[in-house]
């Protein structure tokens, strides 16, 4: 028996955010394919935008799930998302151009099985458990694929595992100088995992507002994107990496100022906080 301790009042409904996040993320990942079509690397920054879109959706999914009081803390949901997402994402990279679609489908299957295990076998009995864990796995896979596309310029298995090093003007193939071979995927894992769980963890409580949390999610996404853009300098041309850094910095600055504004707005509001508040976030 579970009691939902917090309701979404007003704001954008969850299904709208889910649809927008999924579509935007997949389209942004596909826009990095313009790299292959035009022969440049300048379109890599779309991968970062895909990650930001998925992280924004993810923060709202975590809010949706954690408002039932799962008792394990908010960060565990982010870790679950990326633990299941990384497996789906790496397998999906084998399918060439269809990779993002395969990642979504496979992550949905893994997430649904994990949701069934949590809800039925472990007897959690939370109405949104299966749907939320399915969404979380898709989010994990899309964020990782977005960062992979941004850092290495491609979302396919071969470019992700094979890089090249230049020694005395000669370009030699090297598997170590690649997104997976150099284990940058582990950094992307944590960059995304922390960005997706932080917004709800920071904004929960009786004065939770949707626009403030979603703005913080975008801010966290852009902050991770700055780091990913710096890492992409290893694999991409300088101009392409510079475009990514500028996009990330501009996006971060805009969302950060907006978040501070919204925080001041919410902090100035007077709340009828009773000694033991009835509306308690978890």
């Amino acid at each position, binding site marked *: 028996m579970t009691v939902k301790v917090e309701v979404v009042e007003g704001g954008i409904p969850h299904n709208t955010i889910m649809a927008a996040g999924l579509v935007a993320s997949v389209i942004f990942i596909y826009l990095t394919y313009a790299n292959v079509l035009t022969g440049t690397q300048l379109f890599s920054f779309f991968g970062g935008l895909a990650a930001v879109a998925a992280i924004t959706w993810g923060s709202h999914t975590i809010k949706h799930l954690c408002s039932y009081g799962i008792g394990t803390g908010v960060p565990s949901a982010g870790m679950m998302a990326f*633990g299941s997402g990384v497996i789906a994402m790496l397998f999906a990279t084998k399918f060439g151009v269809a990779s993002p679609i395969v990642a979504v489908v*496979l992550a949905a299957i893994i997430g649904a099985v994990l949701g069934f295990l949590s809800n039925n076998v472990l007897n959690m009995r939370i109405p949104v458990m299966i749907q939320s864990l399915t969404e979380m796995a898709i989010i994990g896979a899309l964020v990782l694929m977005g960062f992979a596309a941004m850092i290495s310029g491609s979302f396919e298995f071969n470019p992700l595992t094979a890089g090249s090093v230049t020694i005395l003007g000669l370009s030699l193939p090297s598997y170590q100088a690649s997104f997976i071979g150099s284990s940058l995927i582990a950094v992307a894992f944590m960059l995304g995992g922390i960005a997706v769980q932080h917004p709800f963890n920071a904004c929960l409580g009786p004065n939770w507002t949707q626009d403030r949390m979603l703005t913080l999610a975008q801010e966290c996404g852009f902050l991770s994107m700055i780091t990913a853009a710096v890492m992409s300098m290893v694999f991409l041309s300088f101009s392409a990496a510079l475009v990514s850094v500028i996009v990330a910095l501009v996006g971060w600055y805009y969302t950060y100022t907006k978040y501070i504004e919204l925080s001041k707005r919410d902090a100035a509001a007077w709340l009828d906080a009773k000694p033991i508040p009835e509306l308690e976030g978890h």
Partner: protein
Amino acid sequence: MTAIGAKPAAGAAMDIPSTIAGIILLLVIVGATYFLVGAGMMFYALIGVIVGGLLIAFGVHFVPVGGAPAAMGQAPGIATGVAMLAAGAGLAGLFGGAWAAEQGLVVAVITGAVGGGLMMAITCMFVTFIYVFGMGIPCASGKVAKDPITGDTQTEYKSQGTEGHGLPFVSYVGGVIGGLLGGGGGTLIYIMLLDVYKEALPGMMKALPAQVLPIAVSLAGIFAVGMFLVNAVLTAYNITGTIEGPHDPKFKRFPRALVASAVASALCGMVAILIVAM
């Protein structure tokens, strides 16, 4: 029922039809893998991955996870969530075991177990220092009247209105056992996947084994981390966040977590193996 009274939902009972469905799902996944890759090394790797997942799930039940109430001195245990503790202890073990990967399966798994156990022992020791000398609270369990190992009585030291506080001796021992099992399980998953990738990647990528070794290590590592976190969080769902250690009544719920973790490890392991088999 008010929001304050709303405790996390999971009941203690086992849901038999769902458990049977889970076991059938496990058999289907194992059967499908056998059908796809045959009875070779890859199939045995899947079995190893499932065993590793079971060790992690069983191990996390021993770890005294206190959460926010422990940070306020109102419940016993280490004052953080399962995701952080499992990542700390399990990954420390995994890194330790990965160093010994060249010396064979048994040495590597034992090294991983020692790494995880050591990490938990150090964590528990400093947690006790901070509780006793920093917060000024004695260690007392709220779930049992006497410590099952030392036989010390607990109730005299327990403050009114709390569920106990600090880190009783039995919780400390439980933490070390949990670290041993978790670190060993994580290392077992890593070694099994590393062997598969070292065998299959040179042919798949048409390169020398030494050239693709970084890819094999990186793939096996990130898959092991992913599976570790999935198993740890599933177990956290089973114990609904907090547990005192092996003497806690919640410990008896572990059969459910074993079923869930076997299915989850089998599914993730199958995908991880098919990445090179397809």
